[in-house]
């Protein structure tokens, strides 16, 4: 696999970083357009209520108020990722279902006026009985939050493979445990914002988003406007982690305000609104039953997982499935039954999260350690025994084409001195391992693919046009790096135009881990097409076979006789002369089973490829205080082949923070429907002083499909770092830990419970 690349695989300085270090990089809230108005949103104070009447007349009379909108200005279209989950009007019609739901919007000349106008809007509510916890919500007599979801079950994902009951009957050992994890807040450092500018029948939009084309389509539906009249533009995004995947209520409200006022309108949410009124993370309870043979081979798995979905569907079926899939993509189990229930409650809306599913994933890994202990096995051995290998199929029939779990496990264990460390642990110390594998993309119909255009200008520099979106991870830089590698011109010769729906072509977006594997492949193919054209002209001009020509450092050069060369720009100009300017297209559609559907047919090839990862955490636990520290953390991630080594490391390190350290501190706390910690003082995002010494390890499986062998750049760590930490804590304490995050009070409670005779 040792191919020589010029720039792929280097520690390249990201192309976007200069604008970011100088403060000139603009985020949505930084935008200022002529005549721009300030928007504010009136929100529901009730978790569940009928709206009897909304009177906006007094607000409209306030000087400086330019527009007020309510659901009466919308078109009655509801949002949901799937046809069968379209339940969210985005601006409440006759009922509110969570505290903070958007009820009306105001656009005014300044912030004070807009806030004053909110006070003048009179809404008459009739409070309804509400329900805040999924188990209660599923009870027969629970208040029904949406007519269409019986027992408030929004989505039920059922997967059944093999002979599950028979396999449990024959198992040498069966364990069943229940784990619960509070939901998290995405805590992107940038609070949500939208700028909408409507003029002459066209709507221009800027907002932190992870997929401009998907966002424009959703808004074109909600606004009943043709897609070409809704333009989502490129803007820097201050973090995403799943939170910016879907259209947001603020997008609709701001758009309606701009259309009504005829001026640009900016809405910037406060930190507290960002937490309570944009999507947050699911609270999850997972009951996990595992059967194994005497040698530790997993023979059967059964899961019942309940997701607290909040008030609306959002990515419902996906959210209720992903934790399971990233687990079956890592481990072999021939018999499995999965029942995932996403349940509607009168709490804030929830979406997908980069570190989604910690109750399920930590639970599976900790239980595997408990089983290993009963069998007298090393946790590493039981993982190696059950880890999937290249050529194998997952339980629901996805073939693994590269990687496999073994190498990340071995690399991480070696780096962490796993065996020696385990043998030498003292009181209060523990070491643990967590594994996972992650799909690079998943079926989204024709939106699963990406397309890219390239043009060469008359000085031989290139413009790359792609829908690839960068929410902070470095996707823009990645696209430029790939283009530079293929075209043989330096990075500074490449201009990027991206994530602008009028200009760029479809792309699946910066979620589902498809950016480098799918979007990067499209860029590579487009540049290869351009290069083919260039070398074709060069062959004639230089009277030399095209196969023996290459482009290196802006020069066409013979591979066998380096004395034969010509500046590339001469060839590009020659192409202009002949009326055939160098302009190329490339597209990539991943090889997935498009018949696959999250509920109706959860079987078939899920993704073009999968990344594998293993994390090893060392912890110390103070049994007096319940305080856990993580002095050292090793994370091995198989990214196929890194495009930018430094960027991949950055993803791994950020994941250790957002999953590994977060499992000690992060949780959204509620009292009934009220979020108690919407700010960054009470919600504990880890700081530099909370971080372990991190050793990121890049594993290269050189994927046969990925661009230059690349897969995705670090998500396995985001979905296994918490498992490593909880397994290490379990290793240190020897008692079951079923409630996450592992805050000191929960640790002490687990120790007390074990003292009470409830030994595992």
């Amino acid at each position: 696999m040792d191919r020589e690349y010029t720039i792929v695989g280097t520690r390249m300085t990201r192309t976007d970083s200069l604008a970011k270090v100088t403060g000139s990089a603009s985020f949505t809230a930084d935008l200022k357009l002529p005549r721009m108005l300030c928007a504010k949103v009136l929100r529901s104070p009730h978790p569940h209520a009928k709206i009897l009447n909304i009177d906006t007349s007094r607000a409209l009379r306030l000087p400086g108020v330019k527009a007020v909108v309510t659901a009466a200005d919308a078109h009655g279209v509801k949002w949901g990722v799937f046809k069968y989950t379209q339940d969210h009007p985005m601006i409440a019609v006759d009922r509110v279902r969570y505290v903070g739901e958007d009820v009306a919007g105001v656009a005014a000349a300044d912030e004070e006026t807009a806030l004053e106008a909110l006070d003048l809007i009179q809404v008459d509510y009739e409070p309804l009985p509400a329900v805040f916890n999924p188990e209660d919500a599923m009870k027969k007599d629970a208040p029904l939050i949406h007519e269409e979801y019986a027992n408030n079950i929004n989505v039920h994902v059922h997967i059944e493979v093999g002979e599950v009951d028979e396999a449990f009957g024959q198992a040498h050992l069966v364990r069943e445990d229940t784990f619960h994890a509070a939901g998290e807040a995405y805590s992107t450092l940038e609070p949500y914002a939208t700028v909408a500018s409507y003029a002459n029948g066209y709507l221009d939009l800027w907002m932190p988003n992870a997929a401009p084309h998907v966002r424009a389509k959703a808004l074109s539906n909600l606004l009943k406007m043709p897609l070409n009249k809704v333009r989502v533009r490129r803007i820097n995004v201050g973090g995403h982690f799943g939170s910016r995947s879907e259209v947001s209520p603020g997008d609709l409200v701001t758009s309606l305000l701009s259309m009504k006022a005829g001026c640009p309108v900016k809405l910037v949410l406060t930190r507290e609104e960002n937490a309570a009124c944009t999507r947050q993370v699911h609270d999850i309870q997972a009951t996990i039953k595992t059967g194994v043979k005497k040698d530790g081979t997993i023979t059967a798995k059964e899961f019942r997982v309940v997701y607290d979905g909040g008030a609306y569907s959002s990515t419902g079926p996906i959210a209720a499935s992903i934790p399971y899939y990233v687990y079956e993509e890592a481990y072999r189990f021939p018999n499995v039954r999965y029942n995932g229930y996403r349940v509607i409650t009168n709490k804030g809306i929830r979406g997908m999260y980069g570190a989604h599913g910690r109750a399920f994933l930590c639970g599976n890994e900790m239980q595997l350690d408990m089983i290993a202990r009963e069998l007298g096995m090393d946790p590493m051995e039981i993982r190696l025994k059950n880890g999937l290998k290249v050529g194998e199929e997952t339980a629901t029939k996805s073939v693994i084409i590269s990687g496999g779990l073994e190498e990340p496990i071995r690399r991480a264990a070696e780096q962490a001195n796993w065996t020696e460390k385990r043998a030498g642990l003292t009181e209060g110390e523990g070491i643990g391992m967590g594994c996972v594998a992650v799909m690079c993309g998943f079926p989204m119909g024709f939106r699963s693919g990406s397309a890219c255009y390239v043009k060469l200008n008359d000085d031989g520099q290139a413009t790359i046009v792609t829908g690839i979106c960068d929410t902070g991870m470095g996707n823009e830089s990645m696209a430029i790096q790939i283009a530079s590698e293929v075209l043989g011109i330096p990075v500074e010769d490449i201009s990027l135009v991206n994530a602008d729906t009028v200009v760029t072509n479809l792309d699946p977006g910066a979620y589902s881990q498809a950016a480098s594997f799918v979007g990067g492949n499209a860029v590579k193919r487009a540049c290869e097409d351009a290069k083919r054209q260039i070398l074709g002209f060069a062959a004639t001009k230089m009277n030399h076979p095209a196969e023996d020509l290459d482009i290196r450092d802006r020069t066409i050069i013979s591979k066998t006789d380096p004395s034969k060369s010509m500046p590339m720009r001469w060839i590009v100009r020659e192409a202009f002369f002949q009326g055939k300017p160098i302009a190329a297209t490339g597209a990539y559609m991943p090889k997935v089973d498009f018949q696959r559907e999250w509920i109706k047919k959860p079987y078939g090839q899920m993704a073009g490829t999968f990344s594998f990862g293993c994390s090893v955490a060392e912890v110390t636990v103070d049994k007096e205080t319940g305080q856990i520290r993580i002095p050292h953390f090793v994370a091995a991630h198989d990214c196929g082949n890194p495009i930018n080594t430094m960027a991949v490391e950055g993803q791994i390190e950020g994941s250790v923070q957002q999953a590994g350290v977060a499992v000690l501190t992060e949780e959204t706390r509620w009292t009934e429907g009220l979020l108690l910690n919407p700010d960054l003082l009470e919600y504990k995002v880890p700081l530099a002083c909370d971080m372990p010494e991190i050793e990121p390890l890049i594993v290269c499986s050189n994927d046969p499909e990925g661009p230059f062998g690349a897969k995705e750049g670090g998500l396995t760590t985001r979905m296994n770092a918490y498992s490593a930490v909880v397994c290490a804590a379990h290793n240190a304490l020897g008692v079951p830990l079923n409630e996450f995050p592992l805050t000191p009070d929960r640790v002490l409670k687990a120790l007390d419970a074990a003292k009470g005779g409830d030994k595992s």
Partner: protein
Amino acid sequence: MERFKVKLQLNGEAVELDVNPSETLLETLRDRLELTGAKDGCGLGACGSCTVLLNGLPTRSCIVLTAELDGSEVSTIESLADGTKPAPVQESFMEKGAVQCGFCTPGMILTAKGLLDRNSRPTKEEIIRSISSNLCRCTGYKKIVEAVEAASSTETPKT
């Protein structure tokens, strides 16, 4: 509403402002002066994304009232580069890969600059302690610490 006249030395230039008493320095910078490098991440003093140098010290501009700053010196991220040449600390943030989404970056860099101005050879522990005043949601801080180490005038003594 009562207005306050305030004279500031802002990014090396004298400015005279006429502000209302409840206006924060962050609002003055972003809304009045169009210096949007300082970010509003929380408005509560919790995240550090609004950090500027106030009389040389890293300060959260979202919890400082402009009306109280008469005669002060304020430096924002926009003033750090020497013309088009980024300052060494900016260079090292780029080179070490300490920048991801970039929302925390201006505040982080000014916090680091404030530290390096007071202590040109901070230990790793001192760097960690200092930047623990600022939140970053993307990086896990490792590369930020490395960037500040690289920017310090000599090799940081390793412990």
